[in-house]
Every structure is written in structure tokens, then in C-alpha cells.
């Protein structure tokens, strides 16, 4: 008995240490990939700049001046892709099905947030609100709406097809995405096709650091409020998701259903309910990403979901589809890569190539490369845990 009494707390303590590690490890991995990708991309850019500086004067200093901004832009884009990619990867983990309507769920979230802002402004309430309060409020409303929308889509467009051949629900998903695009276009009408988020007066910039340069003037690195809100909020959502999936009973049930649906139902788990919850969580994350996008870039239209969804899907595959940490890491790597290509391709070619136009080319080249050389994704299946 005495031995047992000692062994038990030890076992539970081990388990809780393991839990903490499970929640924090993905965040650590994200950090490693943020720093690593920035360093690698930064180094490549610097080497190129040094090589080209013989023909182009001032190139090196130009490259260095914009580098911090490029990294911040890349992180914003990266967290956007990561948050959307989680919706793909969660659903894939549970159903082995790519929900191609997920990009549109993100777009609907952006419209709900923007519509709420316009309504509050028309009621004169927005002016009385702190901008951050509006962001939180819009996030909650849009996340709920997008989550419920995802649950509804699953119920009516996917569940009846659950035992059909794999291609059938995929076609259904593409159909749903077309319907949603045009439905939002119809509801928004021509005047709101390009929906502008209300001005929130978030003009503060936060100075991060000041680097002395040879020229004498100090180089100031600052981040604007919108980008800061974007990065902090999406990081919080990722931490919350990790906690939910690894620690809560619901999260464990989601993982159990992902691993073996029939056996999960033998445990008393209501599999349909868990699948619906998975869609809700994925949809809510997508809707949240939509609001953050609107706050940061101020204009949204009914077609923003298509490209963003495709990029997020690429991010999910890049990290290893079905792998939650992989989706986060894949999104960030992709975002940074696009930001670097956007800025530096223009700079290095003296404007002959327009970088932003080629950013997507870089993304999809990466997708092709991953599919050829490492189909299991950056984080591979063997090393980390799927959903």
C-alpha cells in the first residue's frame, strides 16, 4: 500500500508536467521556426545584396532598412495563414477530407466583423467604444457566426455524404464555397462589395528598437497597432487551441475520434457531436482570422477567401496536413517567404519584376517541392502527433 501511495502522485505529476509541455511545445516550435526562417531568409537576402551591390549602389543599406518591416509583414501574413490553416488541418485530421469551403468561412467572418462595425458606427456606438473593445467584440461575434456556419455546412453538405467516395464531399465543398461567395455578394450588394472596415483610430506605433547606422541617423523599428493586434490575437488563439486539444476532455475526444471513429463511439463518445465541434472550432478560428484581416487591411470583398484559402491549404500541407503544430509552422514559414519575395524581388531586379505578383508563385513552388520531396510535410508524421 505504501508503495502505491507514493507511486500515484508521481504518476499524476508526470502527467501534468507532460500536459504543460504539450501546450507549450508547439509555441516553442513556432518560435524556433519564426526565428529560423527569418534568419535563413535574411541571410539569403544579405548575400544576394552583397553580390549585387557592385552594380547597384546603396542596395545594401536599402535592404537593411526595410528588413524589420518585411519580417513584421511576413509574421502578420504568416499568422493569417496559420490561423486559417488550422481549420483545414483539424477537419482533415478528423475526417480525412479537405474542406474547400473553409476559405469562404474566413471571408464570412471578415464580413460579419465589418458589418458589425458599420452597424455600430451608424448607431453612433462605435465612437464611444475603445477600439480594442470593438476588436474583441467583433472577434466574438464573427467567430461564433463562422463557427455556426461551419457546423451548418457540415450538417447539410458533408454529413449525408460521409460514406460516399472521397471525391463526392470534395465536390460538395467546392459547391458550398461558390454558393457562399455569391450569397455574400448578393447580401452585400454593389455598394458594399468592397466592404470597408470603419476607421478605428489605431494610429499608434510601438517602437521596438533603435539601431544606430553609419550614416548617423538612427534606424527605428516600429510596429503599427493593427499588426501588433493581429500577431498577439492569433498567437493567443493558437495557445488556446493547443490547450483545448491537448488538455481538455473535448480535445482528447477530438483526437480519439480522429484516430479511430468506431472505437471512440464504443467509449460513449458521440462521434457526430465531436465532428460538429471540430468544425465549430475550425470555423471560429477562420472567422477570427477574417476580422483580424479586416482590421489590418481595412477592405474586404466576397472573393478574398479563395486565394487566402488556397494559401492556407498550402501552409497546412507544408507543415504536414492533419498536424496542428505543422499548420501553424507552415503558415508562418509561408507568410515570411511571401513577404521576402514581395519586397526583395522588386528591389533586386530594379523593379523589372514586381515582387507581390510573384509571391504566390514562390508559395506554390514550395508546395510542389514539398509534395515531391517531403510529402509528409515539414514536421513529418513520425515525429509529432497528429490531431
Amino acid at each position: 500500500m505504501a508503495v502505491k501511495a507514493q507511486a500515484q502522485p508521481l504518476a499524476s505529476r508526470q502527467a501534468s508536467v507532460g500536459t504543460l509541455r504539450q501546450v507549450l511545445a508547439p509555441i516553442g516550435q513556432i518560435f524556433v521556426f519564426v526565428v529560423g526562417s527569418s534568419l535563413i531568409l535574411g541571410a539569403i537576402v544579405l548575400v544576394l545584396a552583397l553580390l549585387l551591390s557592385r552594380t547597384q549602389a546603396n542596395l545594401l543599406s536599402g535592404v537593411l532598412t526595410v528588413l524589420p518591416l518585411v519580417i513584421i509583414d511576413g509574421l502578420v501574413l504568416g499568422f493569417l495563414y496559420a490561423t486559417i490553416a488550422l481549420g483545414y488541418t483539424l477537419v482533415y485530421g478528423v475526417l480525412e477530407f479537405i474542406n474547400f469551403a473553409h476559405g469562404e468561412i474566413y471571408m464570412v467572418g471578415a464580413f460579419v466583423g465589418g458589418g458589425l462595425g458599420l452597424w455600430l458606427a451608424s448607431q453612433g456606438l462605435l465612437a464611444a467604444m475603445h477600439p480594442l473593445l470593438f476588436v474583441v467584440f467583433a472577434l466574438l461575434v464573427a467567430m461564433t457566426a463562422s463557427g455556426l456556419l461551419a457546423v451548418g455546412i457540415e450538417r447539410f453538405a458533408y454529413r449525408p455524404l460521409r460514406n460516399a467516395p472521397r471525391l463526392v464531399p470534395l465536390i460538395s465543398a467546392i459547391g458550398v464555397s461558390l454558393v457562399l461567395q455569391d450569397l455574400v455578394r448578393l447580401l452585400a450588394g454593389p455598394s458594399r462589395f468592397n466592404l470597408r472596415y470603419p476607421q478605428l483610430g489605431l494610429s499608434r506605433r510601438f517602437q521596438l528598437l533603435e539601431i544606430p547606422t553609419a550614416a548617423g541617423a538612427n534606424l527605428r523599428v516600429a510596429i503599427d497597432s493593427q499588426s501588433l493586434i493581429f500577431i498577439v490575437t492569433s498567437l493567443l488563439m493558437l495557445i488556446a487551441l493547443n490547450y483545448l486539444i491537448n488538455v481538455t476532455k473535448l480535445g482528447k475526444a477530438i483526437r480519439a475520434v480522429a484516430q479511430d471513429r468506431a472505437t471512440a463511439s464504443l467509449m460513449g463518445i458521440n462521434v457526430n457531436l465531436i465532428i460538429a465541434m471540430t468544425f465549430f472550432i475550425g470555423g471560429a478560428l477562420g472567422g477570427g482570422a477574417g476580422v483580424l484581416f479586416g482590421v489590418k487591411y481595412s477592405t474586404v470583398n466576397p472573393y478574398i477567401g479563395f486565394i487566402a484559402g488556397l494559401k492556407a491549404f498550402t501552409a497546412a500541407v507544408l507543415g504536414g496536413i492533419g498536424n496542428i503544430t505543422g499548420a501553424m509552422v507552415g503558415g508562418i514559414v509561408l507568410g515570411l517567404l511571401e513577404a521576402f519575395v514581395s519586397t526583395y524581388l522588386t528591389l533586386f531586379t530594379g523593379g523589372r519584376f514586381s515582387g507581390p505578383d510573384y509571391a504566390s508563385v514562390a508559395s506554390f513552388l514550395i508546395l510542389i517541392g514539398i509534395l515531391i520531396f517531403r510529402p509528409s510535410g515539414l514536421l513529418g508524421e513520425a515525429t509529432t502527433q497528429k490531431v
Partner: protein
Amino acid sequence: MALLELQNVHTFYGNIHALKGISLAVNEGEIVTLIGSNGAGKSTTLRTISGLLSPRQGQVLLNGRRIDTMPSHEIVKLGVSQSPEGRRIFPRLTVLENLEMGAYIHSRRDPQYQADLERVLDLFPRLRERVAQKGGTLSGGEQQMLAIGRALMSRPHVLLLDEPSMGLAPILVDQIFSIVQDINKQGTTILLVEQNALMALGIAHRGYVLQTGQIVLSDSAKRLSENETVQKAYLGLD
């Protein structure tokens, strides 16, 4: 009244008529075994009781209440728990998480939960050493222990065991069967499906012999193991 009763149950896989009118009864406190060769319908019977398959005809009764129209997650709540064929543990959940999923129908704040966990870890001390390990990294025998332990976590009245001896070394089979007997002595009724008829009849009170979806023999375990047909067909004795 029997605790668990099947009345003329017909189950189909598509067009394949897998169970052709199975009737059997399991009384409170018994170990009842279903023996028979591959494809006789043993696992199909358990899957039908658990609600993974629904019978096209016939009834499954628990304490006289029909359960064959219920979804499987509801049946677990009524006290029927299954350790499925091939163990089917969750490979990427830890041992502790697997057991926690076994207790899914109970709240984690349920004071009985810790006691259930202790009971299972006492029955299978090997699992205690491996609580933090992923299920998929366990050996075959340990996985079987985990599957049985997980099924016990829901505090079932009836435990359905599907081929617990499959793929295990003889010494482990002895160990697992003696634990199954202990579980029964602690008050759980057991319906045991086995290909290893010798072992199954050794611990069971009664048995049924299945052949191509039908029950061809039923008797006390002692008399079944003395039966000539059973000896020839399933015990490998001449």
C-alpha cells in the same frame, strides 16, 4: 430475467447475411463464451450488441430493455462496454488518456474516477509504469491490457471481450485470462469471444458454439469441453 439477451438476431453486411437468427442469454455474474472458427459471426455478434451494427431483424435486450435501436455511445451509458477485436487502442494518446477516454461517460470530477483508475492500474501493474507513454508504443500484450482496462473504466455491468488472446504469447494469455476471472469475481458479467476455445471454456460458466452465423450448440462450459464435436472441431483433440 437475463441481464443481456439476444432474440433471433439477423445482421447483414450489405447483402451478406452474417448473423442468421442468433438467440442467447447472459445472466448476471456469469462468464459466457462464444466460440467458433473465423467468420462464424462471433465479432459480428458483439458489434451488434454494442450498436456498431444494427440488426435487420430481432432484438437485443439489456435488463429487458431494447437497445438495438440505440446508437453505440448511448449503449455504453447503459453499462455495456466492449474491448474490441484487435485492441484498437488510440495509438497517439497516452495510456492515461486512453483510460480517460474509457471513462468518457463519467465526469472527471466524479470521485469514483480515481478509484476506477486505481482499480485498473492494480489489475494491470504494467500499465502503471507506462501511464505517460503513447498507446502505440506499447507491446501487443500491454495494448491488450490497456484495451481491457479502458473498457472497465466506464464501470460496465457487462463487459464484452473480443479475442483477448489474439497474437499473444501463451504465458501472457494465461495472465490475461486469470485477470478476466478476477474482473468477473469483482462483479462484472462477461461475454467472451474466443478462438482459443480451450482457454475460454476453462474460465467460462457457459458457452455457445457459433457456425456460419448460427448457434449450433449451447451448454455449460464443462459439458461443452467434453462434447465430441467441440473437441474435434475447436479443441484440436481426437
